């Protein structure tokens, strides 16, 4: 770092001081300064290990805990560490406010009982737990479900106390709406921008707590030392510099992997980085074949149209104008769980009752402009911006699309993975509270509840964790440097992007809503062939700084690992349960498959095994809606 940039960096840290702010403007933007300093996080960053580093000027940071991912889970966990006085940092490949959590629309389930249920009955955490377990097709671990549902009311209240502006009832209490697969109006919401409201609240709190955030740092590998995870390496995207992070514990909070599918509601950044990094470091993955397809995504862009649209009274209609859900879920109709509704739509389309191009209608017109504007304003805006359709006047064209990953890094309630020192929570983890199918409104809940619980467990145990050695971090940085140099050094190879498209198409056509042995085997071969072809890809952009193509290459590398785990899990599970629907095994088989799928490394290969489901309060029964 030059003296000039050191000077400017200290000014950056003093930005609250007005004099410093004025001084900073005397330096012309970008003139003669290293771009690196511009991305030094705004809070004080400790670099105590810098001298120890064997890689010369390689920055090695040390914190007690490193959190990978800056969405709801990561931010909630960071607040817990901050309150406990434990030094932690958040590393995120995007600014935390750009995390996919921000896109969550519908709400967060909690048995607050603010709105009476059918016949005036009062909601309870037990009813919430039952709906969740039934929704999961009895694959969820019931101890985890019970814990989540018990924690739910205080979690919603806690967010309210941090400043979240929840929608309200006339009496001033937090409003709740009905959601799919739930017997009660249990979903707390902030219009249809719940994720946005909660994420901004948590980020405000993180700002107030001055928690260091390494923005636009893309984690490239985990560091292991004697069978323990002791940190990670990360590419600082804007400069191309590889950093090392040493930590007593690492918390993975990177979200889902929806972008391995061609049709997905997920943000473009959801490439399954956390699952792939954990798997490669030795932590097994669980239930990866359970991928949720949301029934209502906008035709063309696959942008989510919230279940809240049906919760507020919207109807699904086929090309004859029929409310076809009566055929598939006579009681729950449009508010059956997502797996049921997504299959129903696909069946209607297959039977020729969809519209040309393969979609059906979601009709909100009868709700009226006032209700739509008050409770579904974001949906209206999305439909107008991206499909040119005003839901007040026309039905919305929708089709199912990938939405959520029930599976993930295998962890217990305390977030502990199969690799000591590595913890995980939120969508990247599999606790498992969602089993074979997640209920709407339970994912936001999971992020905040298990973000906190994982952090509490780490905070409790951290006095017994040793300080990590710098050596393994430094050598992992060197290995990462070599890997990046090798990728950027390739010439005359094939372009990257057609391979990404091919993977996504393969996953959607071979591992989509309906699956069968023959096509899945074809899919698996295609995934493995793509992995081989990656070695012959070269990028035209050789620069280190802000090389977006390089970041996408590394993301594709992660996606291939995740795709293989989905494929092997799906091929191995010879039954239909929740989101996993096999034409060749149409029934649920509790005898053989009331078990979680585990994908773990065995040598260079991925091996599938099974582990029992934790039952408890509720016995498996036939799932009828």
């Amino acid at each position: 770092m030059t003296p000039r940039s050191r000077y400017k960096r200290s000014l950056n840290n003093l930005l609250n001081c007005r004099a410093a702010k004025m001084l900073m403007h005397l330096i012309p933007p970008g003139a003669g300064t290293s771009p690196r300093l511009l991305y030094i996080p705004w809070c004080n960053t400790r670099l105590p290990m810098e001298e120890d580093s064997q890689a010369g000027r390689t920055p090695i940071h040390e914190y007690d805990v490193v959190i990978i991912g800056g969405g709801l889970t990561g931010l909630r966990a960071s607040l817990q560490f901050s309150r406990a006085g434990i030094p932690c940092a958040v590393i995120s490949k995007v600014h935390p406010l750009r995390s996919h959590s921000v896109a969550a629309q519908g709400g967060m389930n909690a048995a607050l009982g603010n709105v009476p249920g059918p016949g005036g009955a009062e909601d309870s955490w037990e009813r919430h737990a039952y709906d969740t377990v039934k929704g999961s097709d009895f694959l969820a671990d019931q101890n985890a479900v019970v814990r989540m549902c018990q924690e739910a009311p205080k979690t919603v209240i806690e967010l309210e106390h941090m400043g979240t502006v929840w929608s309200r009832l006339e009496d001033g209490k937090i409003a709740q709406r009905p959601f799919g697969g739930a017997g009660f109006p249990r979903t707390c919401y902030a219009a249809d921008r719940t994720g946005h409201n909660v994420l901004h609240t948590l980020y405000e709190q993180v700002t107030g707590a001055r928690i260091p955030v390494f923005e636009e740092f893309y984690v490239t590998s985990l560091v292991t030392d004697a069978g323990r995870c002791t940190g990670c390496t990360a590419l600082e995207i804007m400069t191309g510099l590889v950093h090392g992070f040493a930590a007593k514990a690492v918390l993975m909070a990177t979200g889902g992997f929806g972008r391995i599918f061609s049709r997905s509601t997920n943000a473009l950044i959801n490439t399954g980085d956390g699952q792939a990094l954990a798997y490669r470091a030795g932590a097994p993955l669980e239930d990866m074949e359970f991928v949720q397809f949301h029934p209502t995504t906008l035709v063309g862009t696959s942008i989510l149209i919230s279940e809240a649209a049906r919760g507020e009274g919207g109807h699904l209609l086929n090309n004859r104008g029929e409310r076809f859900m009566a055929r598939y879920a006579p009681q729950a109709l449009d508010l059956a769980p997502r797996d049921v509704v997504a299959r129903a739509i696909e069946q209607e389309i297959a039977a020729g009752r969809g519209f040309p191009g393969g979609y059906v209608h979601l009709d909100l017109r009868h709700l009226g402009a006032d209700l739509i504007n008050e409770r579904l304003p974001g949906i209206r805006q999305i439909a107008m911006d991206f499909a040119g359709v005003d839901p007040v006047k026309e039905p919305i064209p929708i089709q199912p699309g990938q939405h959520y990953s029930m599976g993930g890094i295998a962890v217990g309630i305390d977030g502990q993975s199969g690799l000591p020192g590595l913890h995980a929570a939120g969508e990247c983890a599999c606790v498992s509270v969602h089993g074979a199918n997640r209920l709407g409104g339970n994912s936001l809940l999971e992020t905040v509840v298990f973000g906190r619980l994982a952090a509490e467990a780490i905070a409790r145990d951290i006095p017994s964790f040793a300080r990590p050695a710098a050596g393994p971090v430094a050598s992992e940085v060197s290995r990462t440097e070599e890997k990046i140099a090798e990728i950027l050094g390739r010439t005359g190879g094939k372009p990257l992007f057609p391979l990404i498209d091919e993977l996504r198409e393969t996953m959607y056509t071979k591992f989509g809503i309906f699956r069968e042995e023959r096509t899945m085997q074809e899919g698996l071969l295609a995934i493995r062939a793509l992995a081989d072809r990656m070695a012959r890809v070269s990028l035209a952009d050789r620069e280190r700084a802000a090389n977006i193509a390089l970041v996408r290459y590394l993301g594709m590398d992660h996606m291939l690992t995740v795709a293989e785990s989905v494929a092997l899990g799906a091929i191995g599970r010879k039954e239909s349960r929740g989101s996993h629907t096999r034409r060749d095994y149409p029934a649920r088989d509790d005898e053989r498959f009331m078990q979680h799928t585990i994908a773990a490394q065995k040598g260079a290969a991925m091996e599938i095994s099974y582990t029992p489901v934790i039952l408890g309060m509720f016995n498996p029964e036939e799932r009828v809606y």
Partner: protein
Amino acid sequence: MMQFVVYRFRPGMDHPRYDRFRLDPVSGETVLSALFRIQETLDDSLAFRYSCRGAVCGTCAMLINRVPRLACRTQVAALLEGKAGLPLSHFAPAGMVEPWDPKKEVIVEPLPNLPVIKDLIVNMDRFFAYYREISPVFRPSDPAPVRERPMSPAAVRELDRYTTCILCAACFGACPVNGQDPAYLGPAALAKLWRFRIDPREDRGEERLASGDRPDGWWACRFHTNCRRVCPKDVTPDRAIGKARMELSKRKKEKEP
């Protein structure tokens, strides 16, 4: 055939250059997807930010046909058909003078008023420094009750005018005052400050109001209202600023004998 005119810059270059990319039009395409097509088929070194592609995360604000907008929300066809014009007041971003033919071309440049890192990526540090400067942390007056603090639906409706802000900085890039006075907190930070000012669960209204009572706060705005015009979420920072100034003026009058 249409053409994308794209601003290119990386550290080490004395001046930015403009590259012209020819693309076949694709129906329903957004500017963001066109940028991906350029990156994927013509030049993989093109640098831009992206995340949600659904106009909710605020990542991809840039200058499109000389108007700050979200690339993911802007339809290419609407630009070429001349349907996406948006007159702005006193808006002349420094250095952006490359001519283009709006009937056949779309010009894409980085968001003004922030330093460029590479191509369409700007350094947002100053924007977020001002966000932190207004102390955007909820500080209720009373100790936390067991349950929620009650709030009327009407209070929520008023707050929602400002909580919908996605901090994309389109307003910051569109504001002529931000262009001239780098110390100005800017529309987004002031709208955020007002959001806390009117939150009925806080009783620090005076404190919040006072923290913007400075020459580079409430008083720097000259009501060009570009912020409101470019906001992809219909936030109205000018309304918040106007109300704050009215309150402060009223206070000051009352204090005079």
